């Protein structure tokens, strides 16, 4: 089933990184601000590793303006394609759920 495979947090991380590179804690902070609740490091880092293994993101250590160096993640071209694919999947899911609510309301 499509919705079971959509992986909301993973898709949200891809979407955030498609906008601009970010480091681990910044990603968690943006997810929290976006309404995804508390995403711990224990959830985030395995997810980032899976995205890196799939070549959807790359990482590099960079100097930071406000503190010590951090490891930034940014999306690759394959990652941008995957983000577009997941966005299309989300539109499909959203329409299906909207249709169900229209029928039942």
């Amino acid at each position, binding site marked *: 089933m499509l919705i079971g495979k959509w992986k909301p947090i993973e898709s949200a991380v891809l979407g955030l990184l498609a906008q601009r590179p970010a*480091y*681990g*804690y*910044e990603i*968690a902070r943006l997810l929290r601000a976006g309404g995804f609740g508390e995403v*711990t*490091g*224990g959830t985030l*880092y*395995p997810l980032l*590793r899976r995205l890196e293994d799939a070549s959807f993101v790359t990482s*590099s*250590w*960079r*100097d930071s303006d406000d*503190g*010590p*160096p*951090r*490891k930034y993640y940014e999306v690759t071209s394959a990652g941008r394609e995957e983000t577009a694919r997941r966005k299309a999947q989300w539109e499909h899911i959203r329409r299906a759920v909207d249709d169900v609510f229209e029928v039942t309301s």
Partner: protein
Amino acid sequence: MTHSDWIDRLVVALRHRGVDGERVGELVAEIEAYLRDSGSTPDSEFGDPADLADQLVGRAGPEPKSQLRLGVFVVASSIAWLSIFGLLGAGEDGRVEVTVGLLVAVTLWTLGMAVFFVWIMRSGGRVWEGRERPRPRIQIGVFWVVLVASVVAFVVLPQTELFDLSNTVLWALAGISISHVIAESIRQARQARLSVPPAASPHGEGLIGRWTGIARLRTGWRLGREAYRDVDRTE
């Protein structure tokens, strides 16, 4: 669990799963950076170090390649020692008679010890991580069974000579196996040495140049003591 204890356990868990020192150092530096930004503790943010290691590496326990390497290492060590004993015990003509009993005994001992140490490697990690109950009596028992079976095979089986080994062959066997043992030990030591990317060096305090072998021994000793503390009461 203190911060440094948690980091030590993560380092040990990652090394047990065959992650090399360079990658371990980078992962730990990244986690340290995250914890500095979030202000939280490693326990609350990342949970159990062994579970995190499973998710980061994609499996639990040592990879098959590590187990095979250990098995080959033990076989090479056994052959080295047996070759040296053979050289010391060779007859006046400089040859060692290999009988049925001796061949079976040597094979039993060499392969038995290889399997035994690979089992200890897999089981030890799980015991340290609290995922398996320690069974020291069974482990000691298996060691003695292999030893006694080898001795019994040597004594009981026919002393019919199959072939003999010259000093040259024994020297060659000793040389090859000792070379392998030394090369593998150096390789393991190099792979275990933590390093941190230069850009991440602020997060690598206490990590750069650190030998994971020491962390593994220290943490393993502590975890082993905790795990084995109640064995006598429960067995």
